């Protein structure tokens, strides 16, 4: 049989295994292309300006768009960011500037674990603490759920980018006689602002596409926005509703909405990449 010490056999085996590894990478890239290709082709075929500027029409009528859902997503992402950015930044500042090693690693661990909690569980939590006592689905509860998902992202990127600010800058600031908190606010944070912005945008990209926590918090609302205490529509939620509906027209609209959402998320991640590359050089 084959001698495994024979150089020829070893070389062939080498080629085979490296070839398999390349195949793995090739497959992964193929999947991305397949998915994006379908979204672009199916999405573009229905997309027009009316789709963005008009509201949904009753079933049976053609046309109609996602205006309410687009506005809803913007409101929800804004609300989530409004809660998550200050909290996440405070946590990040604590981790990088103030925490003693013990406390900091406990908080860091908690943030990492929170980042790993399935988004549907966060949705159930928001339902349990807000929707149930208030007896109503609400934009506010959805915003809170999205904020909980976003906080760890902002916290960890804030921490990491503040750590990249050289200590000499902090020392220079302190040597001028200003206090610790002033040095953080006017020296360290400006130095780390690109990184922090990157983290915030990563968080926005993440929550803009979240669906699971919205099903029983935002719920969806065909009539547009009517207050934070009322149900609200959202783009991902509408994609879900339309995709599982039996109507061709709705399924088509789901593809177009998916195209919009994918473009939004991909643009954000491209900008994030560009920002973080600029920071490295």
């Amino acid at each position, binding site marked *: 049989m084959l001698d495994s010490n024979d150089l020829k056999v*070893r070389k062939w*085996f080498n080629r085979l295994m*490296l070839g398999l*590894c*390349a195949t*793995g*990478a090739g*497959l*992964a*890239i193929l999947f991305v292309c397949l*998915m994006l290709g*379908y*979204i672009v082709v199916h999405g573009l075929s229905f997309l027009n300006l009316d789709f963005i500027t008009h509201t949904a029409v009753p079933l049976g009528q053609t046309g109609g768009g996602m205006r309410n859902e687009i506005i809803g997503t913007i409101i929800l992402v804004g609300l989530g960011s409004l809660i998550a950015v200050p*909290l*996440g*930044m405070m946590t990040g*500042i*604590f*981790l990088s*500037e*103030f*925490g*003693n090693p013990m*406390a900091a690693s*406990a*908080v860091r661990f908690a*943030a*990492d*674990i929170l980042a*790993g*909690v*399935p*988004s*549907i*569980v*966060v949705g159930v*939590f928001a339902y349990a*603490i807000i929707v*149930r006592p208030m007896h109503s689905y609400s934009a506010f509860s959805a915003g809170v759920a999205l904020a*909980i998902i976003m*906080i*760890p992202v902002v916290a960890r990127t804030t921490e990491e980018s503040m750590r990249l600010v050289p200590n000499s800058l902090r020392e220079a600031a*302190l040597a001028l006689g200003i*206090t*610790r*908190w002033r040095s*953080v*606010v006017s020296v360290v944070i400006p130095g780390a602002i690109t990184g922090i912005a990157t983290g915030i945008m990563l968080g926005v990209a993440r929550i803009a*596409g979240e*669906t*699971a926590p919205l099903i029983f918090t935002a719920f969806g609302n065909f009539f547009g926005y009517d207050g934070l205490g009322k149900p609200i529509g959202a783009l991902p939620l509408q*994609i*879900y509703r339309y*995709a*599982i509906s039996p109507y061709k027209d709705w*399924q088509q609209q789901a*593809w177009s909405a*998916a195209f919009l959402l*994918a473009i939004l998320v991909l643009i954000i991640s491209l900008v994030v*990449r560009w920002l973080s590359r600029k920071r490295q050089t």
Partner: protein
Amino acid sequence: MSSPHILPYRNPKGRTMIRSRTRGSLRLGDIAFSRLTLIGSLIVIAILVNILVILFIQAWPSIQQFGVSFFGSAAWDPVKEQFGALPAIFGTLLSSLLALLLAVPISIGAAIFLTEVAPVWLRNVASFVIEMLAAIPSIIVGLWGLFVLVPFVRSPIEKWLGTAFGALPFFQGNQLGFGFLAAGIILALMIIPIITAMSRDVLRAVPQAQREAMLALGATRWETIRKAVLPYGRSGLVGAVILGLGRALGETMAVAMVIGNAYRITPSLFSTGSTVASKMANEFGESSGLQLSSLIELALILFLITLLINVIARLLVWRMAAVKVVRD
């Protein structure tokens, strides 16, 4: 968090009256600011603890009613108010294991390719494209799964498996397209970028000397990877796979759209089923009373499982990072 730690730079000597007064007030600012950031951090911990406590409290009626038998029962009958978690847990484990089976070889292979084999220009481009897959929201993956993957799974995949291996219990039954197989494939697609990116970082952290020593002994590239690179990064790679598993267990929308939402236990991969997460997504909106409480208990179970998985993965990845620091 006592003030000496906050203010290591203060000068104990220069104490004139005026200075100490100004300083005193400024120190107050420092303390206030650090306390403020501490509050932010405590809120993060409080959220985590609260998720556990609130879910437990709201699941209590179901825990009280069914006790341990909740885990062993396959019933889900809102009319008779009988609920059990077994089919959901089974579906979650089955689809996640299937996903790992498909994703791990592809991801580790891709990571090896990206760190050891590919030319430098290709590394960046390929990493970027694969990471784009991670950025696509799960609802869009689900939409793609529903309209593209499911028909493809129905025919040719299930058709072929049914003909070739129909004797095995895993490949029997109706070939619907929807089911555990489709769920496993879609989950695999979603965790490939995660496992690939993390394994790539782990392999990158393996010191170059490790490779050079092996090559100097006359090993081929693959033997170098197999015997010098992979063993060095083992715990980090395991950590990456476990993080991928954590993600697969909690994934909701994409799975809910392709798994078919039956509630049963069967060895057949062609069969429709449910996962813990998809069960919640489908029923939470229109349930109340004991059913709602049972669904919240499902959420609690999912939370505890992913908590455990994440803790293990973090510890493994951290250990790897610690080893790296020591040996560099």
